[in-house]
C-alpha cells in the first residue's frame, strides 16, 4: 500500500518542477482611488486591468437590535452585481470578504455597533474576488477603522499546461483548470482566506500560496505608496 502511494506521488512532483520554470507571472496594472464618494465614511475604487470594484464603508454606527453583538461590532458586507440582483455567487463572495475583514478589523473596540461595507462591481474581467478584497481594504483604511493588519487578495489560475497565472483575466479564468484566491495579511504574509475552484495537487496549492505571498509584497508596496502620496505635502 505505502509503496504504491509513493510511486504515484513522485512523478507528479517531478512534472511540476519542470513546468513551473517556464511560467511568466505578473500582475496586471492596478490602481486605486480613495475617498471618491461624499456620503460613505470611507470609499475606494480599485482597478486591476479592466476589473474594477467600488467600495463604500459606513460605520461604526447604530446597529439593529436583532443584529447586535454585545462585545464587538457587527460587520455586514454587501456585494452588488452589475446586472441583476445579488444571487448565490454574490453571497459566497460576501462571506469570503466578510470573514477576511472580521479577521483583520479590531471589532471589539466598537461593541454594539454596525459596520457596513458595500462593494459595487463596476466591471468583471477576471480576479473579481481579489479585486473586491483590495477595494475593501482600501475603503476600510480610508474610513480609518482600527485594524490589526492590512490584507490583500491575489488570484492564481492554473492552466491546462500546469502553469500558474497570477491575476488572470476572464478569458484566462475560463481556460484554467483550477482557480484559487487567497487573502494574505501584511504582517506575517499568512493566508487569511482561501477560495478555490477546480482540482489541483497539494504541491500546486503550496506553490500558488508561495506565488501569492510573493505577489502580495507588490500590492502592499502599492498600499504604502498610495498612503504616502496621500499624506505627503508634495504629491
Amino acid at each position, binding site marked *: *500500500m*505505502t509503496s504504491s502511494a509513493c510511486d504515484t506521488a513522485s512523478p507528479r512532483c517531478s512534472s*511540476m*518542477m519542470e513546468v*513551473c*520554470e517556464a*511560467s*511568466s*507571472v*505578473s*500582475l*496586471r*496594472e*492596478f*490602481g*486605486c*482611488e*480613495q475617498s*471618491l*464618494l*461624499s*456620503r*460613505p465614511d470611507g*470609499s475606494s*475604487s480599485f*482597478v486591476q*486591468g*479592466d476589473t*474594477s470594484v*467600488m467600495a*463604500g464603508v*459606513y460605520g461604526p*454606527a*447604530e446597529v439593529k437590535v436583532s443584529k447586535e453583538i454585545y462585545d464587538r461590532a457587527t460587520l455586514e458586507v*454587501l456585494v*452588488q452585481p*452589475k*446586472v441583476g440582483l*445579488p444571487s448565490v455567487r454574490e453571497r459566497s463572495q460576501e462571506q469570503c470578504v466578510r470573514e477576511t475583514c472580521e479577521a483583520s478589523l479590531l471589532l471589539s473596540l466598537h461593541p454594539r455597533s454596525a459596520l*457596513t461595507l458595500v462593494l*459595487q462591481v*463596476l*466591471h468583471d474581467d477576471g480576479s473579481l474576488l481579489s479585486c473586491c478584497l483590495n477595494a475593501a481594504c482600501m475603503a476600510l483604511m480610508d474610513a480609518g477603522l482600527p485594524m490589526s493588519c492590512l490584507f490583500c487578495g491575489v488570484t492564481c489560475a492554473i492552466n491546462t499546461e500546469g502553469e*500558474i497565472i*497570477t491575476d488572470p483575466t476572464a478569458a484566462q479564468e475560463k481556460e484554467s483548470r483550477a482557480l484559487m484566491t487567497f487573502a494574505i495579511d501584511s504582517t506575517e504574509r499568512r493566508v487569511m482566506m482561501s477560495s478555490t475552484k477546480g482540482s489541483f495537487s*497539494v*504541491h500546486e496549492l*503550496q*506553490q500558488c*500560496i*508561495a*506565488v501569492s505571498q*510573493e505577489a502580495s509584497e*507588490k500590492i502592499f508596496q*502599492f498600499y504604502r*505608496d*498610495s498612503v504616502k*502620496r*496621500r499624506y*505627503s505635502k508634495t504629491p
Partner: protein
Amino acid sequence: MKDTPLSNCERDFLLKAIEEKKRLDGRQTYDYRRIKITFGTDYGCCFVDLGKTRVMAQVSCELVAPKENRPNEGIMFFNIELSPMASPAFEQGRQSELSVKLNRQLERCLRNSKCIDTESLCVVSGKTVWQIRVDVHMLNNDGNLMDASSIAAITALCHFRRPDVGIQGEEVTVYSPEERDPIPLSIYHMPISVSFSFFQQGTYLLVDPCEREERVMDGLLMIAMNKHREICSIQSSGGIMLLKEQVMRCSKIASVKVSEITELISEALQNDKAARKAGGRCGFAESMPQERITALKTDETPVETTDATERANDIVQRAEAPPQTVPSPVVPVPGVGQVGQQNTWGLEEEEEEDEEQEETRMEEDQDEDEESGGGDVVEISDSEEEEVVVLHPETTGKAKNTGSSSHQQAAAASQKRQKK
C-alpha cells in the same frame, strides 16, 4: 442603518438662505451642478456625476419570448437599485417608497415616451424578441437622483450595442462581436428629466436640488422633455398646489436645460466613439483622475517566482504524509447505493441478529460445555464462521466482517465461560 437627521438649526438656515436667493454650494436658482459623463469598458455602461451625486447605468440584453398581446415588440425593463452605498438610509433588497417612485418615473420617462423603437427588437414574431434591461445603480446620493439616473439610462441606451442575429428558417444564431459588428439600438429621441423643488408653499423654486435642499423642500416637480421641446412626462409630488404660470415657467426652464444636457451627452458619445475607433484603451481605468493625491496607479508588475517552487517543495516535504486513503471506492454488491466499507444501518441490524445468534450460541455453548467440558475455543469459532457464511451468502466482504465479529463473540463467549 439610519440616516443622520437634519437639525432644526440647519433647516432654518437653509430656508432662510433660500429666501435670500442663496444656495449652499454658491449656485444660482436655475443652475445645474457640473455634469460629468464617463463610459465603462464594455458597451452600455455609463457613469454620471451630477455634482457629488454619482450614478452608474448598465444596459444588457437577452432573447426572450414576447408578451402575448404584443408579439412583435421587444421588451424594455428598468431597474433602479438604491444601493446602501449611496446613503445609509437605503436598505438592501427592500423596495422602498423612493425606489418605487424613481422606477416608475424612469419607466414613464423612457418606456412610455416610446423613445426606443421596440419593434426593431423583434427577432421572430411571436417567438423571440430582445429584452433590453437597464440597471441603474446609485453610488452616492447627494440629491436629485432622478435627473442623474435619467441621464445615465438614456446615455447608456445610446451607447449600447446589441449582438447581431441571423435567421435561417427556424434557427436563430446570435453572432459574437468578433464575427459581426454589434448593432446600436434605434432611438427616436432622448427624454431627460429635470427636477424643480419648491419651498414655502411654492414661493421659491430651485433647479437641481442637492440632498440638503431635498430634505427641506415642500414639493417636487419633475418634467421629462426631449430636445424638440416635447414633454414626455410630468409629475408633481409632495402635495403642493402649483399655479398654471409656475408649471409653464418650469417647462420653459426645462427646455433650456434639456437642450444643454442633450448637447453634452452627444458630445460625450462622440468622444467615446472616437476613442474606441482610435483603438486606445478606454473605460473606467482610464477615466480615473491621475492628478488627485488620493489616486495612484501602477503599471504591470512582474512577480518573482524563482523560489516559489522550492518553498512549495519545502513545505510539502516538511508536512506530514497524508493519511492512507482507500484507492478506489468499495461497492459491496452491485446495485447497492453504498460507498465505503461499512454502513451503520447495516451494523445495527447485524447486531440485532448477532444478539439473537448469541442467545442461541449461548445455548449451544452450554450444550457443548456439557458435552466436551470446556473444549477448545478455536473450534467453536470456526464452526460459527461457517454458520455466518451460510447466513450471508451474497457478499464476501460482509461475511468477513461478520466473521471477525463472530470471532469477538466467540472470545466473549469464552470469557463468559471462563467466568463460569
